[in-house]
């Protein structure tokens, strides 16, 4: 069946509700438990749209950390978005500025992972097709994130602890990793990322994660270079 890139994006974004709903609800619950009014909880999810950094910011505010440090630490968690932004350039860099501006707003882990994976598979797609696919993935993902934050904030402490809703945070990101492990270079990069992040967890302002990520990027690129450079999009897949 031939589907338009937009419809394909919607179809492939929809299952991500399984991730976005518990993740957003968790932020809503923890936000009101921390003492934030619902408006501020929603402000985070609509204006920041970066779950992991939102959790970091709320936690640091509870720890009575100065505002500047709260923002910088949470921002460090989001520096990966700059890497995503750069990784999207070869695919949609030629799109009109207003489209790229909107895409930047919706560029989250899930829309990024879905889109780059689809772009590498569908080398026949033009710029407009790629933008349409991205828009399709954002259509279910973004409202689910905002809506579930609201539901979580309203329910608040009524969500029982036994549900272990906290596990939604690591699970939302961990689930993205498995399908990305396409080659030995990807596995090596992921390994360095884990070891580096655990070893550098003492580095203040969450910069340990950024250092670990840079080491991991270099590892992946170096392993790729040594295992006979294959052109983009033809990585061996099992």
């Amino acid at each position, binding site marked *: 069946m031939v589907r338009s890139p937009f419809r394909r994006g919607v179809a492939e974004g929809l299952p*991500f509700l*399984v991730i976005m709903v518990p993740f957003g609800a968790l932020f809503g619950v923890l936000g009101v438990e*921390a*003492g*934030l009014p619902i408006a501020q909880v929603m*402000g*985070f999810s609509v*204006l*920041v*749209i970066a779950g992991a950094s939102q959790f970091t910011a709320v936690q640091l*505010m509870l720890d009575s950390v*100065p505002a500047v440090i709260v*923002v910088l630490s*949470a*921002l460090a968690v*989001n520096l*990966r978005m*700059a890497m*995503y*932004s750069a990784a*999207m*350039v*070869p695919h*949609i*860099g030629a799109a009109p*500025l207003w489209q*790229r*501006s909107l*895409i*930047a*707003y919706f*560029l989250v*882990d*899930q829309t990024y992972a879905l889109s780059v994976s689809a772009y590498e598979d569908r080398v026949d797609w033009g710029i407009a097709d790629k933008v349409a696919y991205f828009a399709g993935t954002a259509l279910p993902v973004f409202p689910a994130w905002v809506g579930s934050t609201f539901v979580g904030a309203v329910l608040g402490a009524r969500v029982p602890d036994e549900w*272990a809703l906290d*596990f939604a945070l*690591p*699970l939302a990101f*961990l*689930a*993205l*990793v*498995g*399908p*990305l492990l396409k080659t030995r270079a990807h596995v090596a*990069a*992921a390994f*360095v*990322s*884990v070891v*580096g992040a655990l070893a550098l967890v003492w580095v203040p302002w969450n910069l340990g*994660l950024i250092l670990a*990520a840079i080491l*991991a*990027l*270099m590892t*992946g*690129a170096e392993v790729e270079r040594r295992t006979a*450079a294959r052109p*983009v999009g033809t990585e061996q897949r099992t």
Partner: protein
Amino acid sequence: MSPVEIGGPGVWGIIAALGVLTYLTRFVFLGIVGDRPLPGWLLRHLRYTGVAVLPGLVAPLIVWPAATGGETDPIRLIASAAALGVGVWRKDVVQAVVAGALVMGGLSWLNG
């Protein structure tokens, strides 16, 4: 530098600053570089962005979960392994999430 009063107007300042700065991190390359070609060595590094960031982001959360006061929890480790394993095996994010959630829920329930 003083701490922020939870629920006070200072929180809006944090939301605004974090919102604008996060948007700029997403916009920086897409908006400014546009369709100028990037050098090959940079592209080779960028292909590993996802696997370089996400595992390091979750590893401390899984090994030292806040919900247990930072104590390593075998149930969370096994559930994480299930999510990762199914993700590798099925090449599907959603099946990985479902596997992780089912194992987490099932083992927590068995554990009372």
